[in-house]
C-alpha cells in the first residue's frame, strides 16, 4: 500500500529541487503572474483574486513540480515564467508612469 519506492526520486538534490521549485518557485510564479495581470485588469480586483486564487494556483504549481523527472527543469521553467511575468510588470509599470 505505501507508494512503491521504485518510482520515487532517490537522490537528495533531486528531491530538494522539486520541493523548493514547488514551494518557492511556485510562489514566485503565482505572485509575478498576478502582478503582471494587475496592469491590464482592475488592480484591486486582481489583488483580491490573488489573495484566494493565488493559494489554489500555488498548490497546483507545487503538485506540478513533482511531475518532472528532473527537478531542476521545474526550477528552470518556474524561474523563466517568473522572469517573463516580472519583466512585463517592470517595463509596463515604469513606462506607464513616466
Amino acid at each position, binding site marked *: 500500500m*505505501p507508494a512503491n519506492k521504485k518510482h*520515487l526520486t532517490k537522490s537528495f538534490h533531486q528531491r530538494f529541487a522539486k520541493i523548493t521549485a514547488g514551494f518557492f518557485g511556485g510562489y514566485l510564479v503565482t505572485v509575478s503572474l498576478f502582478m503582471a495581470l494587475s496592469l491590464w485588469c482592475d488592480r484591486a480586483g486582481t489583488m483580491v483574486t490573488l489573495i*484566494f486564487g*493565488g493559494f489554489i494556483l500555488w498548490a497546483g504549481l507545487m503538485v506540478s513540480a513533482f511531475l518532472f523527472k528532473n527537478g531542476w527543469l521545474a526550477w528552470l521553467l518556474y524561474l523563466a515564467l517568473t522572469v517573463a511575468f516580472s519583466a512585463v510588470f517592470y517595463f509596463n509599470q515604469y513606462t506607464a508612469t513616466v
Partner: protein
Amino acid sequence: MSNRIYNVLFHTHTVSGLVISVALYVIFFAGSISFFRDDIIAWERNRPIVAHSQMNADFDQILDTLAMRYGELRGRTINIRQSHQERNVIINISSTQDTSASENARRSVYTYLDTRTYEESSYYSGYTLGEFIYRLHFFAQIPYPYGYLFSGFVAFFFLFAIVTGLIVHWKKMVSNFYLFRPWARLKTVWTDAHTALGLIGLPFQFIFSVTGAVLIIGTTIMLGPASSLIYDKDRDLMYRELLDQPPAPAFANHPVDFDLSLNELVNESQAAWGDVVLSRLCIQNFGDENMNILVEVRPQTKSALLGLGRATFDWSGSLTAQTSDESVNYIVGADQLMRRLHFGDFGGYGLKIIYFVFGIITCFVILSGVLLWVEARDKRSTAPWKRTANQWVASIFMAISLSMYPAMALLFSIVRLAHDPGSPTPHVFIYKVFFTSWLILSVCFAAWRNNYLTNKYCLFLGSIFGMAIPIVNGLVTGNWMWDTYNEEQLQIFVVDAFWLITSLIALLVFFRLKKVQPSNGQESETRIEGRKLAGARMF
C-alpha cells in the same frame, strides 16, 4: 496517469499529510468548537444576546462618555465596530489633528466598551474562554507572527494534501466510495474510512483550507511583494483600495458646532435600507467643517449572503452618498464571501451544527490517515525498530489529538468554577488550566501506547467532564438548562445543550466499544479491537 506519477503523488500526499497531521487536528478541533464562539462568550459572561442584533447601542451617550474620558473629540476620527455578536463594541479614536488641542486629545485610544454599563475593558481583561478556543485554532498563543504563519502554512499544505489525495484517489473514486470492509484487516478499515469520509468532506475541506490560508496569511504572504511594488508600502492606500473604502477628507481646521444625534442618523439610514444590521459607524474629523459620518450596514443573512450599505453624512446631517445595502462589488464580495464561508455564520444554528459535524469528520479523516500510515507499514518486511518507531509516532499523535477533547471539556467547568471575573489577566489562568491538563493527558496516553484504550478513555473522560458542564453552570449561576430554555437565553442554552448531547454520544460510543475475540491467530488483540472502534466511531 502513469504508474510513476501515481506513486510520486501518493508519497507527497503521505508525507505532507503526516507532517501537518497533529497541527491540523488541533486547528479543526478547536475551530469546530469555535463555530459557537459567540455562544461560549455569552455563556461565560452570563450575558445572553438578542438574536440577530448587532451594535445595539446609544451612540450619543457613547460619544459623551468618550469625550469625558479621553478629552476633546474635535479633529479626531472615531471608529466604532463590533467584530462578533456581543455587548461590547470596539472603539478606535485617532489622535487629534488640531494642533492647539490638549495633551489628552493627542493620544490615540483603542478600547472595548460595554454598551449597557459603559464599563471599559482592555483586550486582556475582556479575554474569554471563547476567545481562547478561537485563538487556539490559529495558534495565536505562539508569539506573532510565528503562530499565524505556522497555522497559515498548515492550511496551505492541507490544500496541497487535498489536491494530491484527490488525484491519487481519482480512478477509484466511485467504486471505493461504496467499499467498507470493517471485518477485514485493520488497514482496510482505516483506508475505506479515510477515502469515503475524505470524499464526503472534500468540498468542506477545500473551502476551509483555502479560506483559512486567505484569512491568516492572505495579506502578509500573498500581498507581500505587491504591497511594496504596487502600493509603495503605503498600507493605508492598499487597505483602502482592497476594502473599497472612500478616501478620508482632509482636516479643514474650521470648527463647526455639531449637535446632531448620531442615533437619529443611524436610525434614519437603517430605516431606508430595511432589514439590516449596523456593521460600523465611523466619524471622520469630528467637529470640523470636513466632518464625515459613515454608517455601514450589512443585510441580515436571511435576506442576502453578501452586501455592504454605506451612507455618508456631512456635519450638517445631510446625506452626501448612499449605496444600496445589497449592492456588492467584486472586491467587497470576495472578502465577505471568504469570511462568511469560513465562519459559517450565514445559516443560523442548523448550518453551524452541520459545519461542526463536518469539522469533526475532518478530524477523523486526519487521524485515520495517520493510523493507515502505521498499519500499512506494520508488516514483516519492515525492520522491527521501524515498526516500533512508527507505533510510537502513532500513539503520540493519537494521544495529543484525542486528549484535546477531555482537556477542553474540563476547561469549561474549571473556568465556571474558579474564574475570577475581576482578574486583569484571565488568559493566564485559562492557559495554565488547558495546557497543563492537555500536557498531562497527552503524556500519560502516549506512554500507555495503546490507541484503542487512548480513544476509549478520552471519550470516557470527555463525556464525564462534558456532562459536568451544564450541571456546574446550573449550580454556580443558577442558569439550569430548563430555565435558559424557557427564558429564551438561547446562547447559554446552546452551550449547555452542546456539551450534554456530545457527552451522551461519546458515552454511548464508550459503552459500545467492546472487545471482539480474535478470529484468526495471526492478528493481535488490539487490531481486532480497533475494527470495532472504527465501526463505532463512524456514526
